[in-house]
């Protein structure tokens, strides 16, 4: 995997990439269906002309059940809403009609965690990963950049089980080369260092890479790992680097309970380690610009540096 990270914002918005990728998938496979819950303008799919793009209205539980029924009839459904409504709001439907009944579907939850910004606490899921982690056979992608989003959308189409893709709608920093391919359950090692490892997903990958650069200037060499999928988690890779360096910090845009922090802790259980996390404490979200929320919930590269130094 070629890493192209340069710390600069990608000019492409996630929202446009969703629209373009979904349109291509609809054209290449006549089993693909896109369901939305009155948020097509937010998922970039509102311009697509197809009888397989269906607005279900503001009824996410119904949408999730319809997705499962479509799957049972041989279709390959994607269903989108904002993160809390693509997880919490329809969890029983996704859990039973899709998961338990073995009808593969892909749920897209946009604006995870603090990226919900001006929609505020009601729309700010710090628990969506925890829910989907508890769903047997599910796959969770916490999207880092545009190439990963494109790959996840394509891969999800023919994968078994429930897939949950959590992705912001706006900015990102490109980490992977264009056209990159990924394997669920296989982490990517973005840089290697002997002094510790940071496991970061989604928007926190950029913060982790910034933190690693800052720490390197002080002579602390960190490994940075993107798990790609939080479930299944690449336990072997994480354990290997944790064992070799003896210091592990997890960074995620989610409550530390039930998310990547919990998953990594379960993975390294039993290893003698210095362990820390940069994640949302057990609190609800609130309204504000992303920059404010990043500081408010300590989801910054500065905070990662502080936690690493505190463990040294």
């Amino acid at each position, binding site marked *: 995997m070629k890493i192209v990270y340069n710390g600069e914002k990608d000019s492409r918005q996630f929202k446009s990439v969703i629209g373009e990728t979904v349109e291509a998938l609809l054209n290449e496979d006549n089993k693909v*269906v896109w369901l939305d819950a009155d948020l097509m303008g937010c998922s970039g799919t509102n311009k697509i002309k197809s*009888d*397989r793009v*269906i607005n*279900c*209205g503001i*009824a996410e*539980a*119904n*949408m*999730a*059940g*319809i*997705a*499962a*029924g*479509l*799957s*049972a*009839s*041989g*279709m390959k*459904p994607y269903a989108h809403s904002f993160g809390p409504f693509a997880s919490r709001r329809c969890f*029983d*439907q996704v859990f*039973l*009609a899709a998961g*338990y*009944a*073995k009808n593969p579907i892909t749920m897209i939850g946009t604006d995870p965690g603090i990226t919900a910004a001006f929609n505020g606490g009601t729309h700010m899921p710090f628990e969506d990963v925890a829910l989907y982690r508890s769903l047997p056979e599910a796959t969770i992608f916490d999207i880092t950049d545009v190439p990963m989003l494109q790959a996840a959308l394509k891969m999800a189409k023919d994968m078994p089980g429930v897939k949950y893709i959590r992705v912001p709608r706006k900015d990102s920093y490109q980490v992977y080369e264009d056209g990159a391919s990924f394997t669920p359950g296989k982490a990517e090692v973005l840089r290697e260092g002997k002094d510790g490892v940071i496991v970061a997903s989604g928007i926190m990958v950029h913060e982790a890479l910034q933190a690693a650069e800052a720490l390197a200037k002080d002579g602390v060499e960190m490994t940075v790992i993107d798990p790609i999928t939080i479930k299944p988690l690449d336990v072997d890779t994480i354990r290997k680097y944790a064992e070799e360096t003896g210091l592990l910090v997890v960074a995620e845009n989610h409550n530390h309970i039930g998310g990547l922090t919990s998953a990594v802790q379960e993975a390294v259980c039993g290893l003698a380690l210095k362990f820390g996390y940069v994640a949302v404490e057990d609190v609800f979200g609130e309204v504000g610009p992303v920059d404010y929320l990043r500081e408010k919930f300590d989801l910054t590269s500065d905070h990662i540096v502080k936690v690493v130094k505190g463990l040294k």
Partner: protein
Amino acid sequence: MTTKELQKFAGEIRLATVECIKSRGFGHIGGSLSVCDALAVLYGDIMNVDPKNPKKADRDKLVSSKGHAGPAVYATLALKGYFPKEDLYTLNQPGTNFPSHCDMNKTVGVDMTTGSLGQGTSEAVGLALGDKLQGRDCKTYLLVGDGEANEGQVWEAAMFTAAKKLTNLVWLIDWNKKQLDGFVSDILEPFDFEEKFRAFGFDACTVDGNDVEQLKEALSKKATDKPIAIIMDTVKGKGVKEIEEAAGNHSMNVAPEVFDGWIEEIKSNLKALEA
């Protein structure tokens, strides 16, 4: 099938349903018996299905969103030849393919997994929509409980069915008046189901849901641009006096000899039909 044949089939489904539940000693008997006539008409006359090819893509499909009617669905499928009748006697035994609630991955011929009430409605919408998108000429029949209609999801799915003109989906409401804790009208008064469905954009009618002739007529009607909703006025526990009259007949747990009495009653009713 003639009316008499359909009545006989319904009686046989009742018999196999009670025998199935007797094998475990307890089960959802009231809501299973209320839908036996509908199942007889659907599987005996209306639905295009092939027990030898149960997964045929363009078959008609049944979703019992009231998943607890499993025993009646299993009895119907057994009588249609999907699997040996003896299999019914494994109901809820460890490792069984016949759980309390319908499971498409366990029971041959079951088209959808249901049990969390309300969910089967959206699943049925998805099945019908998928068939429509794939150009299949077939229908999905959806059984919904009246107590189940407490669930908001039922009405989300109803709104979608009519708004998107899913005329290949037929709704059947089992208006048997009782739910687990008592009378539906005492627990959460649903008011007029027929008016409700009409207001939601359906071509709605009410029939005696324990009368095979009325059911057949309603189910034979061709949908126009509106989907059809049939409110089935039924008796919970239909076919066995003691169950019909029991206040709490949602799930019953009785001695084998009580079951035997019920089985005898159904058998004598069947015999009277043949006379």
